[in-house]
């Protein structure tokens, strides 16, 4: 079985920051991602990417090759190996990851494991939500921005938060109409014979070929829960969230979680937290970790840190 110092799962903003920090402090580091290109949510949340790529020194402006730029930057980092198109599907005793490429499976053991597995879209069932044409906001963004295909032309958006506004702007940039928005999953009904044709919101009926569920995002640290890490449901972090110490370590020794997977965060928090966790996972000197932690406090929002404190209390009491 192959063994490394640090294995980072997920090459989004937090995972990249963690892997880079770990490798730069001398740990042999592997960064895994299930997609063919690195970048995670920066690949499909293009408005976010364009506002914030300063954190990665990517030139802003139309047509940036975000994955290419990140690949270029990471190529210069010693001790770092990137494995794309590689799914980490299991986390077993002894810090062993089960990983698969398209045609082979393997095990990878690491002294420390950093899960930077990001988020999943929150969905809420409503009549007709299984019809083709109904999809998550993320699916809509990925098809438009990564695959460059329009899933449909007449859209209804379910949701009224930031994600809904972000998607509406994305759809308009792609030149399609948002014909209605609905805040409440209990008020919406989709119908059609073999695919979506109509959306009812309250008493109003719209002809629509697409409906995006944009109700926000929830942390996705499934591998941590496979490893029996403790967690709790904390609304302000987005949902079921794994409990961690100040270094990002879970209740399972040497299993760390960073970024959205530990509670939905801003871009600046993702980068700053990835760095703290990467250094801790690599066993970097305490002073370096302390400095990174100060940067995280400066970048962090009060809301997220309060929610993390609440999670710790809940974890202690259960």
């Amino acid at each position: 079985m192959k063994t490394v110092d640090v294995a980072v799962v997920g090459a989004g903003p937090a995972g990249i920051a963690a892997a880079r920090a770990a490798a730069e402090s001398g740990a042999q580091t592997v960064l895994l991602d299930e997609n063919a290109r690195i970048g995670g949510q920066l690949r499909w949340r293009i408005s976010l990417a364009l506002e914030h790529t300063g954190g990665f020194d990517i030139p802003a402006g139309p047509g940036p090759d975000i994955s290419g730029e990140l690949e270029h930057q990471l190529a210069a980092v010693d001790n770092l190996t990137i494995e794309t198109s590689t799914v980490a599907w299991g986390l077993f005793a002894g810090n062993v990851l089960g990983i698969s490429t398209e045609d082979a499976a393997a095990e990878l053991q690491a002294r420390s494991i950093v899960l930077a597995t990001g988020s999943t879209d929150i969905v809420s069932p409503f009549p007709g939500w299984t019809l083709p044409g109904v999809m998550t906001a993320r699916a809509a963004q990925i098809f438009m921005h990564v695959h460059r295909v329009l899933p449909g032309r007449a859209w209804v958006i379910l949701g009224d938060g930031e994600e809904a506004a972000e998607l509406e702007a994305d759809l308009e940039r792609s030149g399609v109409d948002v014909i209605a928005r609905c805040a409440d999953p209990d008020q919406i009904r989709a119908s059609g014979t073999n695919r979506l044709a109509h959306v009812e919101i309250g008493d109003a009926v719209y002809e629509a070929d697409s409906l995006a569920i944009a109700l926000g995002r929830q942390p996705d640290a499934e591998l941590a829960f496979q490893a029996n890490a403790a967690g709790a449901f904390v609304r302000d972090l987005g949902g079921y969230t794994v409990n961690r110490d100040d270094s990002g370590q879970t209740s399972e020794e040497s299993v760390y979680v960073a970024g959205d997977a530990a509670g939905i965060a801003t871009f600046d928090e993702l980068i700053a937290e990835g760095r703290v966790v990467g250094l801790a996972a690599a066993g970097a000197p305490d002073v370096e970790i302390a400095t990174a932690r100060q940067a995280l406090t400066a970048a962090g929002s009060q809301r997220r840190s309060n929610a993390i404190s609440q999670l710790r209390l809940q974890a202690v009491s259960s």
Partner: protein
Amino acid sequence: MSEHRPSADMQSRRIEQHPLLGKLAEADQVDITVDGQPLTAREGEPIAAALMANGIDICRAMPDSGESRGVFCGVGRCSDCLMTVDGLLNVRTCVTAVADGMRVETQHGLGYWEDGQP
């Protein structure tokens, strides 16, 4: 399957120009078939994207109800986009790239292996 034939008036769903992402890069063409119908795809794109660009939104029929499903999560998590590809069942078409000569088929229920065994 008639449900798979793109309707004649379907405009292309490719996003050729995008205000932030610029012009769609050139890509080599790949020929695949979907339920026997020939279809052209862009090299490297997922099967579901090639289908969607050609007006096909239905990937499978569910085992219990027979109801149609298409792309829902787009990231390989939900199983709504499962199709039979080159005889292999349960392929997640939203995260599996096209290849020249690929045979893609709507998956009915849990699907059948090519020798007819469920």
